[in-house]
């Protein structure tokens, strides 16, 4: 094996690792923006493989077309999605990498990054929470930021709780410590309740822009009243009468009524909630109930988010949620990653596809390496393209133009549900009816109506 072959193998391994790693990164990341960038890496590395295969012109075309296409795609993603998974990933990474800096980088009080004593850490965290709340009040139009803040507060609560436990054991003043923790937890839970209410309102705005009547649903207001005064004082066992549907146990309400799914009368059940989950659990039950009533076919990702966050209204954090109900945690993560629930099935299926393909490929005795193509390959390709394959290339270009034209025409059409709500009667149908009614009248009234008719028809042609 000489140096040339070694170099070829090395570059082949590097490029194919980039191709496969970029594609895997595109699939596995939660952020759509990162997915686009990974796909771009994969495609550019594929151009490297083309160069290794001595198809230089194809490599150039690949880079040009795909980089342009990927830029357009990333623009589309940012336009449509605003990348909620990316913000969550950024948030998680920041928390894992630098826990002290986590809250500091968001709101910058002049405090030491890694506090030595747990008490100081906790005061830092509560101050940061309040600062974050103030900043959130300023820009509460962005619900993704709010979601991140809610998660941040949730984690901060867990951290302060943990810190409080360790400090109580160390300093030997558990009662004072517990009181402090309870106070800060009460503050945090009130803030969380407010934020949850706001978050749910914003999500409903996002999810149902066409149904403003849902905003008047008593669900969110009611949830505010239950979850806002949440305090650790009622951390003992509480009993509440909850009404549920006999056919749909996920529908819960704390007043009698009818099931939003099937219309049956709700029956009362006794629900025991212990260890600080009293109001939080009721709030979460209301959350699922309202989301079921508004969206009966299937709960969306945002609904799951609100569900889990509402459960976070008690002391539960993401890690605890993972421990308590791994299924709900998995659903939440899958929703945030914009992947379907059938993620394991898809993984098994695609691994099977890959194994079968590789096994089939390995079974065939492929022809060995023939003579190298000559160096003016691009000129040959250009000649072929212009002479023999001109029709095919023109056909492909025609397809591109047709596709783009069709896409533009489709995009210019107004959606049907907006057309009916449109205020200005600028549509041609309106003009046609206007011209139709004077036409019928003019037969009876004679020439007096004729100028009117003419002016209307002129206006209608101008409108076109």
């Amino acid at each position, binding site marked *: 094996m000489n140096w040339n*072959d070694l170099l*070829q*193998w090395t570059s*082949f391994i590097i490029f*194919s690792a980039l191709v496969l790693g970029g*594609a895997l990164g595109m*699939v596995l990341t939660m952020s759509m923006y990162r*997915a*686009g960038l990974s*796909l771009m890496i*994969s495609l550019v590395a594929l151009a490297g*493989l083309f160069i*290794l*295969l001595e*198809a230089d*012109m*194809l490599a150039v075309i*690949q880079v040009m*077309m795909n980089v342009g*296409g990927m830029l357009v*795609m990333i623009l*589309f*993603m940012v336009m*449509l*999605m605003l990348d909620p998974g990316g913000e969550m990933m950024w948030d998680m990474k920041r928390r894992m990498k630098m826990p002290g800096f986590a809250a500091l980088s968001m709101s910058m009080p002049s405090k030491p990054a890694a506090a030595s004593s747990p008490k100081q850490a906790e005061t830092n965290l509560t101050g940061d929470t309040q600062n974050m709340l103030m900043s959130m009040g300023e820009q509460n139009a962005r619900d993704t930021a709010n979601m991140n803040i809610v998660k941040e507060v949730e984690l901060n609560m867990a951290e302060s709780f943990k810190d409080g436990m360790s400090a109580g054991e160390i300093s030997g003043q558990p009662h004072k410590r517990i009181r402090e923790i309870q106070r800060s937890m009460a503050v945090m839970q009130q803030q969380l309740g407010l934020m949850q209410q706001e978050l749910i309102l914003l999500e409903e705005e996002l999810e149902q822009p066409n149904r403003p009547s849902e905003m008047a649903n008593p669900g969110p207001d009611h949830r505010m009243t239950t979850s806002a005064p949440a305090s650790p004082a009622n951390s003992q066992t509480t009993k509440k009468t909850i009404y549920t549907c006999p056919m749909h146990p996920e529908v819960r309400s704390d007043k009698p009524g009818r099931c939003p799914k099937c219309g049956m009368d709700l029956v009362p059940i006794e629900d025991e909630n212990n260890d600080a989950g009293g109001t939080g659990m009721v709030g979460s039950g209301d959350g699922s109930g309202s989301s079921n009533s508004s969206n009966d076919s299937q709960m*969306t990702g945002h609904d799951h988010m609100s569900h889990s966050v509402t459960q976070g209204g008690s002391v539960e954090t993401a890690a605890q949620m993972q421990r308590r109900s791994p299924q709900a945690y998995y659903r939440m993560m899958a929703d945030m990653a*914009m*992947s*379907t629930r059938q*993620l394991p*099935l898809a993984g098994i*299926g*695609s*691994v099977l*596809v*890959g194994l079968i*393909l*590789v096994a089939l*490929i*390995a079974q065939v005795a*492929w*022809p*060995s*390496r*023939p003579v190298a193509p000559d160096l003016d390959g691009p000129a*040959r*390709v250009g000649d*072929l393209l212009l002479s*023999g*394959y001109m029709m095919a*290339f023109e056909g*492909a*270009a025609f*397809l*591109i133009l047709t596709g*783009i034209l*069709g*896409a533009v025409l489709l*995009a210019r059409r107004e959606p*049907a549900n907006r057309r009916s709500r449109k205020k200005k009667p600028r549509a041609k149908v309106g003009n046609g009816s206007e011209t139709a009614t004077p036409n019928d009248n003019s037969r009876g009234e004679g020439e007096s109506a004729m100028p009117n008719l003419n002016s209307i028809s002129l206006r209608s042609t101008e409108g076109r």
Partner: protein
Amino acid sequence: MGGPGLLAYLVVGGLLFAIGVFAVLCQRGAVMVLMGIEIILNAAILNLVAFWRFVNPADYAGQVFVIIAMTIGAVEMAVGLGIMLMVYRVKGTQNIDKFGEMKE
């Protein structure tokens, strides 16, 4: 012995195809599904180029075929993005599970 042979490129192409299938199956965002389709297309293109190089490198029709496949991919991207944008305007979501009923 020589550099990497046809088998190595075909294995890379097959793995890339499997990753693309995984992306199409598991992703829920319409743009991500389009990107998975793009990966599948690129796996096919890599196979085409490898076959051209190792089976019949004297005939450049293989490269022309690859170029035409790339343009088809561009068509797919343009039409897919256009349809997706229109459905997004109608439905207000990018979730493919919500695209189930095409009737209005």
